[in-house]
């Protein structure tokens, strides 16, 4: 299909990219200048940029500590995600009684708004003795339905014949999974890593409820606290936004090839 001119596409996409990126630029600019929070009209290019807002943020909350907490929690969540979702996804490629029921169960689980589950979730976590701990923070995120279906789809994409052949060879289920399935599910793994990370990293309400001690706070809580003090009155707030967003963006940029391939590897093969 080479019959159409390219430049309109480029124009359109450049325009869209511009719209997508302008907020980033604006926040970045403000985070190094503090301009245009009260001054009008705003200057489009930063004047006299300086890093001091970042310094302020760094000392405003125990940033390193909160950062570490966020990293640990996200790491736990991601690891558990990949394993559990892969297992569940694999199971769902098999035919077994009550499969339909399980699928519908998963589907409807997606429809439960978290905000309404806070209290029971808290009590349960308490029962498990995990309050105010990394495990307690991460546990609700240990398995995510969307990712289960991503795995299922990419496993489905594996030709049956391959599996049957392996089975005829007498490979055990485990070997089939590790030797045959996993290598073919790289993309799904990348997808799961990224999504799992994003969802856990950005989680705000649950840490708020389940953490008690100051040492267990995560970055989003730091951001909320910061907001409650500084409101929009300082470039530091936007510096904070950048510092909070950077890790997610970095991870995405690093893994995006696998990620996009992951989704394109047939996340929605129907």
């Amino acid at each position, binding site marked *: 299909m080479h019959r159409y001119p390219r430049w309109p596409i480029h124009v359109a996409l450049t325009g869209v990219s511009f719209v997508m990126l302008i907020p980033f630029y604006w926040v970045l600019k403000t985070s190094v200048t503090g301009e245009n929070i009260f001054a009008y009209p705003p200057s489009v290019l930063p004047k006299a940029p300086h890093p001091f807002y970042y310094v302020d943020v760094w000392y405003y909350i125990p940033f390193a500590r909160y950062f570490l907490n966020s990293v640990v929690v996200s790491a736990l969540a991601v690891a558990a995600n990949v394993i559990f979702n892969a297992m569940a996804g694999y199971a769902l490629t098999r035919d077994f009684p009550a499969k339909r029921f399980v699928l519908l169960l998963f589907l409807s689980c997606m429809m439960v708004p978290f905000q309404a589950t806070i209290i029971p979730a808290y*009590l349960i976590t308490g029962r498990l003795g995990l309050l105010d701990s990394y495990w307690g923070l991460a546990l609700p995120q240990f398995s995510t339905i969307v990712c289960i279906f991503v795995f299922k789809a990419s496993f489905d994409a594996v030709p049956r014949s391959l599996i049957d052949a392996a089975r005829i060879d007498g490979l055990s289920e485990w070997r089939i999974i590790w030797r045959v399935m996993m290598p073919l599910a790289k993309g799904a793994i990348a997808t799961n890593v990224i999504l799992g990370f994003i969802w856990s990293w950005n989680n705000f309400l649950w840490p*708020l409820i389940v953490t*008690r001690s100051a040492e267990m706070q995560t970055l989003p809580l730091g951001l909320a606290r910061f907001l409650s003090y500084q409101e929009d009155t300082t470039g530091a707030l936007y510096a904070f936004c950048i510092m909070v967003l950077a890790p997610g963006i970095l991870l995405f940029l690093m893994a995006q090839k696998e990620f996009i391939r992951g989704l394109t590897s047939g996340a929605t093969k129907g």
Partner: protein
Amino acid sequence: MKRRTVLQAGLAGAATLTLPRASRAQAPRKLSYLTWNISDQEQLFKEEFADFRKANPGVEIEWLDKKGTELPAFFQTQLAAGTPPDVVDLQGTIWVEYAANGALLDLTPYLKKEPEVAKLFNQDYLASWQYQGKNYMLPFYIAKTLLYYNKTMFKEAGLAGPPQTFDDLLGYAQKMAKGEKTGFLTLNFDWLYWPLFKMNGIELLTPDLKKAAFNTPAAASVLERLAKATDGGAINKISWTGRWVEPNGAFAGNTVGMLHAHSSSYFFVKGQGSWINESTLGVAQAPGYWATPTNHGFGISKSTKNPDLAWAFIKHLTSTQWATRFSQSRKLLTGNIAADRAGLDYLRKDDALGAQVLQTQLEHTDRFTGNWPLPFDAQLKDAFYPEIQNAVLGRKSAKAALTDAERAVNRVVSRNS
């Protein structure tokens, strides 16, 4: 099975059994202390804790601080789990609900036993924490609404001093409104706008607090005038839509004639408006001296294992010594008479205007309004304000809005009695 027990635990709100960390928090000689978004005082708190431990050896203090908007969520979850903090700092009238439902300890016996404690505080403020004749809180820090006015704009409009009546207020606002400039702005969260109605003799509920009493021709005409003034730009729209930053920010922008807000607004506005000094910013009581308090107080959870220790702790926190330090470092009033005198003296040297602002907080404290001791205050607010908002922003006629508000309010009242 598990599901069952968990459900029961949840519904009974008594899952204390296996909450290791939390239950440790309840162990003897340990106090957990929840504050409302004031982590900037960490330094001071640390000293206070240390000092308290000297007097009470072996006591461990767990300090929690949550942002205001999320504190209720945190506190209520803790209540549900049966592990509320022993000492909690509550703002506004939230405490009434907790008190009415038996979450807070009645401090009256202690105050009776140690009459000298009550004497430390401004009686009007202290009384604003009474529910059904019982006192549930000691003052942490106090504030009430007042009227800031932009002297420069007043001069331009040929106005001498602050308005003395509601008519003045609207008239002055009208005089100052032109183009970008607006005449009047009020904060509207909680009941901070209520003095506008009270100064017109409007009551929210009947004296027995059992029925709505505000659906009157008088109220309707007040609403209509407010709506008209808002539409004409005399009253800044942000009055009815903004939350905290927007109104204060707008006033700091030097284009608003009057700001009806409480004392803490001053420090926010001053931080933003370089124009602010004694010759440009005026400070006065609202017409009729009516004001809505918005205080922070210390309460004690009923479920605490060491009520006496907790009481000793809040006595310590509100003692003249520490209240003074707090008042000076945070530039506010604590309700502790001696401490506030010292704090004001200290502030006068550094920021006379600020001292002037705080001074207003101690005058006419017999004219509090918008602080009804109602266990369902939050529901009332949510039933009432949106309708008022509809009226003043001209989305409904005043009469219709009041009628709807009346219906909503009466439903709330009847649901809760």
